[in-house]
């Protein structure tokens, strides 16, 4: 490891769980972050600062005034310039840690590009605001055998689940079908920051140790200041990770419920 890296990461290398070997593994790791909103801002900021070697991130939207209360990567200059979030994120992240390879993509993740997005990645972080996209991520990651971390927020509440394909439960073991789509939920700004930070923490742990993450649904109430863990189980009859029917990928048959 280079001398300035030893200095930059000295306080995290001091962690027994990480050490210099763990830090080197982080430096060789590649992560896809799907969405550059509030969850994505928190995740990207932390992963970039912690020295994850390669970050690929995708979002089709531009920075808007209504994003600034919770999306920590952006400021009023990004709004005034109408910058795409992925580009603005890349500019801010490059200033934080020039040693990280950044791959910003100003496009929408979907069935048509998901295979290419996953190529070469070690782990996927969900930071989207679209439940259907999460079912697509679940299908794509289970098929590819890639660990991914679901995260979502609603009001002051939030939740996350680490999916370890073939080991623990997947998204469809818990919720076999997506609910009908709804409009954007209210958001208490600390909720996505906390969820995104916890997703980033588990991603760093997974990448640094190589050890699979436990299949627990973590439930946050940012208003009441509580986290709790619900032990969830794999469904051997799950359509996705059991029967390996990938309904949300191209050629798959998407269930009627929650069409949108």
């Amino acid at each position, binding site marked *: 490891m280079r001398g300035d890296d030893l200095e930059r990461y000295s306080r995290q290398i001091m962690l027994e769980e990480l050490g210099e070997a763990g830090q080197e593994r982080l430096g060789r790791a590649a992560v896809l972050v799907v969405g550059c909103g509030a969850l994505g801002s928190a995740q990207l900021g932390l992963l970039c600062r912690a020295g994850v070697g390669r970050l690929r991130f995708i979002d089709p939207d531009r920075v808007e005034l209504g994003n600034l209360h919770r999306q920590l990567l952006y400021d009023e200059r990004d709004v005034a310039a109408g910058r795409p979030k992925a580009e603005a994120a890349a500019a801010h992240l490059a200033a934080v840690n020039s040693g990280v390879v950044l791959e910003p993509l100003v496009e929408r993740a979907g069935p048509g590009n998901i295979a290419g997005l996953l190529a070469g990645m070690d782990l996927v972080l969900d930071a989207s605001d679209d439940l259907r996209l999460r079912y697509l991520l679940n299908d794509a990651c289970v098929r590819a055998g890639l660990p991914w971390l*679901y995260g*979502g927020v*609603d009001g002051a509440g939030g939740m996350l689940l680490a999916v370890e394909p073939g080991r623990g439960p997947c998204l469809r073991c818990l919720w076999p*079908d997506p*609910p009908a789509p709804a409009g954007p939920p209210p958001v208490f700004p600390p909720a996505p920051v906390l969820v995104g930070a916890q997703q980033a923490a588990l991603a760093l742990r997974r990448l640094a140790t190589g050890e699979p993450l436990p299949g627990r649904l973590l439930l946050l109430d940012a208003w009441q200041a509580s986290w709790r863990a619900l032990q969830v189980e794999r469904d051997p009859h799950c359509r996705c990770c059991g029967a390996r029917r990938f309904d949300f990928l191209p050629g798959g048959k998407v269930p009627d419920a929650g069409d949108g």
Partner: protein
Amino acid sequence: MRVTVDGERRDLPEGTSLAGLLELLGEPADGRHLLVEINGRFVHPRDYAGCTLREGDRVEIVYPAFGG
């Protein structure tokens, strides 16, 4: 029979199943888009019909959060 659903107490007929409760709440009985925990334990969707509620059960219904 009294149970607590999402923190609110409800009177239910003896022998009500979890699927029956979901119907009472206006949810499809298969509940494939929600997650249920009873007394802190996760219940698989396929077990909703066979799961009989008991006096004092604490039922929590968890929908996937989609905001980001």
